[in-house]
């Protein structure tokens, strides 16, 4: 009886990440939930995973600043102003595009308008990217947070001397000295 329970614990431990990600198929999910209902150790492990995920979720995300749009518009307008066209960023884009689309046979300057707009946008982006970038705040990928949480735990276990401990334990279990345990 004990062995079946332990195997179930091992399976549950392996699938906890997927369980929390919600990517398990329904039958597997039911098996895990049934096991969690009756196994306090696995429930505690689930809570530990949840806490680590919450820790990851609390990390600051990299987001665009509130004035990003306005700053980009200003830069575009500046570049546009230097090229002698109308200032006004997005308005300018739409106006130029409208003019181009409305004219069946655009005059040479009008024909160059979209290309000018694209060049202006590229210049603006290059100018923006060449500015000194402040240290980027940490970001984290939501899709792999369970994976990272698992690796962090593994790292901590190893840091706590798990490999040295594994050697000591195996040297004290007579049967394991035959080496067949590691063949599994």
């Amino acid at each position, binding site marked *: 009886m*004990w*062995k079946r329970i*332990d195997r179930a*614990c091992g399976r*549950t*431990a*392996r699938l906890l*990440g*997927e369980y929390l990600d919600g990517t398990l198929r329904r039958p597997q999910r039911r098996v895990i939930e049934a096991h969690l209902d009756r196994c*306090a*150790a*696995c429930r*505690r*492990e689930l*809570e*530990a995973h949840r806490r680590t995920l919450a*820790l*990851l979720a609390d*990390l600051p995300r990299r987001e665009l600043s509130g004035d990003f749009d306005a700053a980009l518009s200003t830069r575009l307008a500046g570049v546009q102003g230097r090229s002698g066209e109308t200032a006004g960023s997005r308005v300018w884009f739409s106006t130029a595009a409208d003019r181009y689309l409305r004219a069946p046979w655009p005059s040479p300057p009008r024909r160059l308008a979209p290309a000018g707009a694209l060049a202006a946008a590229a210049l603006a982006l290059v100018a923006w990217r060449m500015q000194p970038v402040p240290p980027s705040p*940490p*970001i*984290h*990928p939501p*899709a*792999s947070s369970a*994976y*990272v949480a*698992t*690796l*962090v*735990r*593994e*790292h*901590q*276990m*190893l*840091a*706590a*001397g*798990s*490999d*040295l*401990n*594994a*050697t*000591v*334990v195996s*040297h*004290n*279990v*007579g*049967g*394991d*000295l*035959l*080496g*067949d*345990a*590691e*063949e599994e």
Partner: protein
Amino acid sequence: MIRARLVASAALCLLATAPLSAQDGREALIRSLEREPAVSFEGIQRTEVTSGGKTRRAAQIVKRRAPDKLRIEYLEPARLKGELVIDDGQHLRRSISSLKVIEEGPSRLQRAQQRQSSRIRALRAGKTPVSFVRDDTLLGRRVTVVSILPARPNRPVRTLWLDQLTGVALRVEEKGPGDRTSVTTFERISFNPVLGDAEFQLPVPAGVTVVPEQLGRPISPQRAEAIARRLWGGLPTPTLLPPGYVLTSAHQLSFHQRPVIALRYTRGRDDLSLFVSTAAGEPFSAPMRPRLNVVQRPVGGVLVTLVGSLPPPQLERIAASLQHPAESTRLQSSPATHSHAR
């Protein structure tokens, strides 16, 4: 008639308590396996594990109560001092006070008992090559030294100093694969001590979490490289590491049923883990908690995650030095270091 029975019984008793036979390593090992589970003892052990030119040492008090109780209490090193490992015949538990967790897994002693007969059968069938080395004396006791050759490549060769009266291994040496060696030896041992039940119980203090035992298992760096070559065409290894970091162990684990290889680099008390997998993930860098940072990035067709106490910029530099698996043909136990990485 009665006298004949008495003589036969005495002969049987003598046979049962006869010392382990010299000159036949296999029989000595079989008798050790048969006797050892019935022996209680306590003693002080020292363990040394050497890999990549680095040696880690531990000292521990070991108590064994027949047939299925084991207690290990660490005295050294400092990071393990006071930690307990207890096998109560149903579970193997290890208290890790620094993490406030108790790691729990199935009993290793019970598993060993369940496999005892099949192991003995395999030994008798010659499936496990065992050779007699010599008779010797250790801690004032007669021992038989036997050597067990691995059945498969990339496994260690073990040499055991088996106490001839009790079958207990007083010294264990493992060599290989690669340059890894480990030695555990008793400095002191006494047999048949009085050991109470409390010695083999591990209460869970408030605030301590019980977690299933570590998901990964140690493998040799050579095996890690072989697995990675089969799965991904190679194992990304850093060409740039801060001075002093050496590869000390490799582990195999799984996440979402996909294999993950972990390489462990250490420098004193600093640790760096490099995880390689095909798990989905995006590049990112983040401090997790004080002295624990994570950097993750795809390298070729695999995802590499670095976890360690180094600051994120240094982890980034190490990550940037990782070679594409196809380019990495050999795992170096001591990758090239670069002074400006620190």
